[in-house]
Each structure stands twice: as C-alpha cells, then as structure tokens.
C-alpha cells in the first residue's frame, strides 16, 4: 500500500546562519546515513531476537539434536549393544559436537551479535530446515529462488495499478462531482477488505463456478518448458486472478485518495490564477498541479518499489503463489530463523537506501526543498 499522507510539513526556508551548501549537504548526508544505518541495525537486531524468541528457538533445536542422537543410538546396532555408560557417553559426545557445530554452545546474546554482524554484511548463512528447489541449504539461494515470482506478480500489478490510479485520479480531479467521481466516492469503502479476501471470491467465481481460470499456482502442472511461449501464456493466465484481487482491494480507494489530494492542490490560488489567464487544463495540470505534488507521487512510487519486494504471506498462500511472502510464512512454521532474518535484512536495506535517496530526489524535483534543510518529516 503506498503511503498517501499529504507531505505538507512546513519546510521553512529561513536561513539561520550562512553555511556553504557543500558542508551542509555533506554533514546532512553523513548524519542521515548513520541514522538510517543505526535504524537498520536496531531493526534487524530486534528481528533476530524476536525470530529466536529470545533464545527459545535454540532450546527447540537443542531438543531436536538430543532426540536425533538418542534415536541414532537406538537404531545403530553397533552403539545399541554397548554397555549403558559407554552408550550414554557416545550420545553426549555426539550432542556436544553438534552443539559446537551449530554454535549452540555459546550463550544466545553472543550468538545474536555474531548473527547480527553476519546479517548486516549479507552473509546469510545456511538454513536450518528449508532447502531451495535445487536442493541447496544456502539462504541466499533459497531467497533468490523466490524473488522472481514475487517481483513478477507484485511488480506487474504495482506498476499497472499505480499509473492507472494516477491517470484516473487526474481525470476525476478535473471533473469533480461528475458521475464517475460519485461512483468512486461511493465505492471507496469497498476497498476496506484486503487482497486475499477478494482473492477467495474471485477464485470462487472464476475457478470454482465458471472453471475458466486456475485456482492458484504460478504455471500449469506440469510446467511448460521455461522461456517458451506456452510458459508465458500459462504464467499470464495464472496472474489474472491475483492482479484482479489486488486491483479490487486498492484501486478505487487509491483513485479516491489521489483525486482528493490533487483537488487540494487544484484549489491553490496560483491554479485559479492560471485558469484566469486562460491556460488549457492540460497546461495547468502539468505545470501547477503535478509539479508541486511530484514529491508525494515519487514517495508513493518509491514505497511501491520497496513494497513489491516484500511479498504478501496471506495473499500468496491463498493463490498458492511461490513467492517471498509464502516462503517467510513457511520459514516461520519451520523455525527457520536464518531465512526469516535474511528476508528482513534485505528489506531493511532496501528501505533505508530508498529513504536515503528520497531526500535528494525531493531536493531535485522541488526547488522549495533544500537537502539538510529544516524539518525532514520522514522518520
């Protein structure tokens, strides 16, 4: 969901003391960079703590290891027939070795810090239980494998909807109070429901009753050969319902918010002035409405760009889509902390970089904004 808060924090242009632009920008960049990095560090650390349940997951893993070797001792005839003391010693040795191998012999806090360092350097390590489709335990590979499906689905729907929404919103802001405007205002509350919810309805109608579209999944089973035309068609067919569901859950509301937002800017004095001068509505729109709203549009677009990387656990579960969201849900179910943390780290970095860049973009597109000027409202 793109952020649609009207970014009208009063950016004051009062200069307190003369300072060269370079030092100001440099100092701001540094402070902002450090702040954002610390934010990522704290966020990722908290995720590590939560994902481990403050060390509880370690206890689960210890229990699993103990059970594994006790079982092994019973199943292995060579060990089973040893005297009890020797057998117990063998089990304990194996368990101790396993603890050491997985680093479980260290206290959780120490492990958490090592974990944090690895995560921040994007050394994502090996998963606990999950494997990639190619059979690898590398978290990097496990995550990489799921990125394309998520990007394809949420990227397509995101871009498509974003521009459709802006186009309709501009159109409606010109025809305030028209029939279609009223339709949008009336239907806006319909978007209170999330995408997966509409997904269930759409699956019911188009897959269960009409039987013209698939229930879920990304391609037909068995999948057509990759990069073939059939593969593409199959993918497209499987994307229709999810995209419809996303559209149903946000299109009207977004058009409504953008249209309201544009209306506020269309009632500025300088727009009235431009109208009085007799400029065409197209010129007014481009010069006086779109330009001051550009920072907000860019923010929204930037959040869309980050948003398509996160996936949606429930949505992907309902549509059986093999994306990142469903993967993180599966990872949680399997207590696979490295995968959970890996996805969080990637997301945090993307978010921090976007926020960092946004400040400069604002300054580029809006001459009223100065980099490092007073009061950046973005947290």
């Amino acid at each position: 969901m793109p952020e649609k808060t009207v970014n009208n924090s009063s950016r004051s242009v009062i200069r307190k003391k003369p300072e060269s632009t370079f030092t100001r920008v440099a100092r701001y960049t540094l402070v902002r960079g450090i702040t954002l990095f610390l934010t990522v560090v704290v966020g990722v650390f908290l995720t590590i703590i939560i994902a481990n349940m403050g060390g509880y997951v370690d206890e689960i893993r210890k229990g699993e290891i103990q059970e594994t070797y006790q079982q092994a001792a019973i199943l292995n005839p060579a060990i089973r027939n040893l005297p009890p003391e020797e057998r117990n010693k063998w089990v304990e040795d194996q368990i101790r070795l396993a603890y050491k191998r997985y680093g479980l012999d260290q206290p959780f806090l120490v492990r958490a810090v090592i974990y944090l360092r690895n995560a921040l350097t994007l050394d994502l390590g090996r998963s606990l239980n999950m494997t990639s489709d190619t059979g690898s335990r590398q978290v990097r590979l496990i995550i990489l494998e799921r990125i394309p499906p998520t990007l394809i689905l949420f990227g397509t729907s995101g871009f498509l909807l974003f521009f459709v929404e802006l186009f309709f919103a501009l159109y409606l802001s010109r025809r305030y109070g028209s029939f279609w405007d009223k339709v949008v205002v009336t239907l806006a509350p319909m978007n209170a429901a999330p995408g997966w919810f509409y997904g269930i309805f759409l699956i019911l109608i188009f897959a269960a009753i009409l039987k013209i579209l698939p229930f879920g999944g990304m391609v037909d089973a068995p999948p057509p050969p990759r990069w073939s035309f059939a593969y593409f068609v199959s993918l497209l067919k499987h994307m229709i319902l999810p995209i419809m569901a996303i559209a149903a859950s946000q299109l009207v509301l977004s058009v409504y918010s953008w249209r309201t937002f544009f209306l506020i800017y269309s009632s500025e004095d300088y727009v009235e002035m431009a109208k009085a001068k007799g400029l065409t509505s197209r010129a007014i729109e481009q010069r006086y409405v779109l330009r001051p709203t550009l920072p907000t549009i860019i923010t929204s677009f930037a959040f869309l760009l980050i948003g398509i990387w996160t996936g949606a656990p429930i949505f992907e579960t309902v549509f059986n889509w093999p994306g990142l969201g469903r993967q993180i849900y599966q990872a949680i179910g399997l207590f696979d902390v490295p995968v959970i943390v890996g996805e969080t780290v990637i997301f945090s970095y993307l978010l921090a970089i976007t926020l960092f860049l946004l400040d400069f973009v604002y300054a580029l597109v809006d001459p009223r904004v100065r980099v490092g000027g007073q009061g950046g409202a973005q947290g």
Partner: protein
Amino acid sequence: MNNLKRTLRELARYPSAIFGLSIIGILVIVGILAPILIPYERAIELWRGGEEIWYANPRNVPPAWINWFRTKKLVETFTLDSAKGEAEKLVDSVNNQIVLTYTFEYNYDTFPQEIIFYFRAQYKQQKPFVSIVWYTPDGRQIPIDNLALSTTTTVRFSQNERLARRFIDTSPVKGLFIDPTSDVKNPTIVKGTYKIVLTVTSFEPETNVDAELVVHGQVAGWAGTDHRRRDLGVAILWGTPVALLFGLMAALGTSVLTMIISAVGTWYGGWVDELIQRITGVNLVLPFLPILIMVGTFYSRSIWIILSVTIALSIFGSGIVTYRSVFLQVKESPYIEAARSYGASNARIILMYMVPRVIPLLIPGLVTSVPGYVFLEASLAVLGLGDPVLPTWGKIINDAQTNGALYEGLYYWVLEPAVLLMITGLAFAMLGFSLDRIFNPRLRGQ
C-alpha cells in the same frame, strides 16, 4: 454534548453514514446477544466438541434456508427423541411391551444422507428386544431390524444388511423413500407421512427404553455445518463480538496511543522527539505481519497477545508523522502560549489543550482503521494462527480453505463468514469516510 448532536445531525445527511451506522448497530446488538444466547464456556465447549455433541448433524451441508431459493427441496436435518416426548410412547406393562411410534412429514425431493436410531435402555440382566418397522404413506410395511438392546445401541440404516438385500438397485436409505412401482433409473419419491414403529419386548418389569431418531438431511440449521458436523451458527454468532472487540480495541488503542505519544514528543521536543522519530524509523524496518506470525507460531495464539502485539507494532506507524505535523502547528498557537503563561502543567497542556485539537483527525481515522484490524484477525486465522479456543469468522474460512471447500463446491462455508467480514468492514469504512468529510470539510471540495 452539543457537538455530538451536531455531528449526528450532519451524519444524517449522508446515506452511507446512516447505512454504516445501522449495520454497526445490528452487529453490536448481535455481539451483545451472542454471549447471552451461548455463554462463553458453552461456546468453546461446542466449538471444540466432536461427535458426542454434534452426532445429530450431517457433515458439510448448507444452511436450511437455501430451500427457499430451490424448486427441488433438500431434506432438512431433524431429530425425534422419545425421552423428550417427540415420539408417541405406549407402555403395556401387562404384555411387557413398550411401543414407540415416530411420525414425520416427508415432502422433499431428495433423500436423506442417513437415518440413525440411538437407543438407551435400562435393564438388570435380561436385554430387551426391539423390532423396527417402517410404514410408508402409501401403506407399505417394511421390517427393518430385530435386535437385542444393550445400554446404548446405535442402528444405522445405511449399514443395515437386510435393507441392503431388499433394495438391490439402490442404497438402503434411498430405497425406503422410493415408490417401488416407479422406474428404477428415474425413481419417484413417495411424499407424505412416514411412520416408524419400535416394538420393545422387555423381560423385566423395570426395563425402560428410549430412542432418538436422527435424520441427517442435506441441509441443517441456519448456517450449515462443517467437516466436523459442527453448526457454523456457533462461530458465526460468536465471531461477531470477537471481530468487533478486536477491531475496535486495536483501532482505539493504536489511534489514542499514537496521538498521545506524538503530542508528548512534539511538546517536549529535543531528545524525546528525536527518540520517538527513531523508534518510528526502526518500526518501519520491522516486518509487521511476519512478526505477528512469529508471535502466533512461537509464543501464543491467544487473541489478547495478538491484540497487544498488533497495537505495540502499530503505535509507531505512519500516523505519528501526520499527527506530528499538526501538533507542530498547534504548539505555536497563541492559546497554548496563554496556557503556558498562566502556568498550566505540561500534562494539562498536552491532554487538555493539544490533544482535543486533533480529535477531528482522530475520529475518522479511528473508524476507518477498524476494518483493517478486523481483517487482520481474520488473516491470521486464515494462516491457521487464530485463537486456539475462540470460534471466529476467520477460523471458519481457514477450516473451509484447508478442507477444500471451494474445490468441492461448499460455497456457503466460505461465503457466510466472508460476507459478514465484508459487511463489517464496509460499515466501518462508510461511516469513517462520512465522518472524514464532516470533520475535515476541506475534503468536501470547493
């Protein structure tokens, strides 16, 4: 008070607000009635109960009211218990006989799934003996079974061998209702009054026998049943207060706390403000839904824990930024200056002078955010992380999804909770949108 009256009068001008308010009103009434009709403990017992509670219900059947829209009427599920006086009971102590007569009207166009007799007998040593005879409306007489009764005995017609031998072309239960003169391929159903007579011969004077006739139809109750024979009505009814409470409490907790924190930060400024902004930043990095899923999976699925975590993670959201920009303007207002000059305390200024100024922003936002939380609870339930004991709408959808309701055409199972969720969300959203236009007239346009 006057303010409230004025707001209500304004609201009356918006049809969508009236619609939203009336739906919310109905939901609140249902929400209050649910715990009165089915007390909390009873609801949980029912929802977790198995065959022993729900034996009288068939599995996976739609609600009874779908018959209103059908020309071919589906069989309704019903029970007749002689202990409750629903069957005629004649005790002939001279001949040591008890005769139980079950009479029912059958005007349906389909067959029941199953007919079962649950016998309860009291005797000392000698088991009583029963013979079951079926009387059709066209005067035929079909002996069904003769058997000795233990303390509890169950007779399932579908597994009755004698009937199976008698009705070779069809199933035992269907055969009882088919007109034998009709075509085998396209049988007609004999409609009218059916009678089942149980003649119990007892060998001891103290013997007593009661029997409950259970007919599993193709529709049941006002909400249908699920894969565990449970009446969905329990969860539909109890889901209402759960959804309302979760939605309202999360929305209220989040909005009010966000506003107060934002006011405190803006008022004190300096490091307090800085700290709040940094926490907001960190909160942006934290993955909201995965954390909720983790808490649900690792720690507790209790609705109260989930509610607390939801609020805790939502407080430092984007709302803080919006409130902050408003408070920054309010802080500079002359009346705040005046309050400060006469020595009002910080708490007084924040709570009495600053907070009320953002109420117009708060109330529409609060109402509009309710659906989001209602759906959040349902979303978690759909992932299988619903409260382990409470019956909720989301859990019905979850059950339906995991049991392939859509694949098998059991649409009522998904549609009932989904429509209720939709209506609830819609009602709050409509009211919120109208409130927004009343409190923030700028949005009404030129």
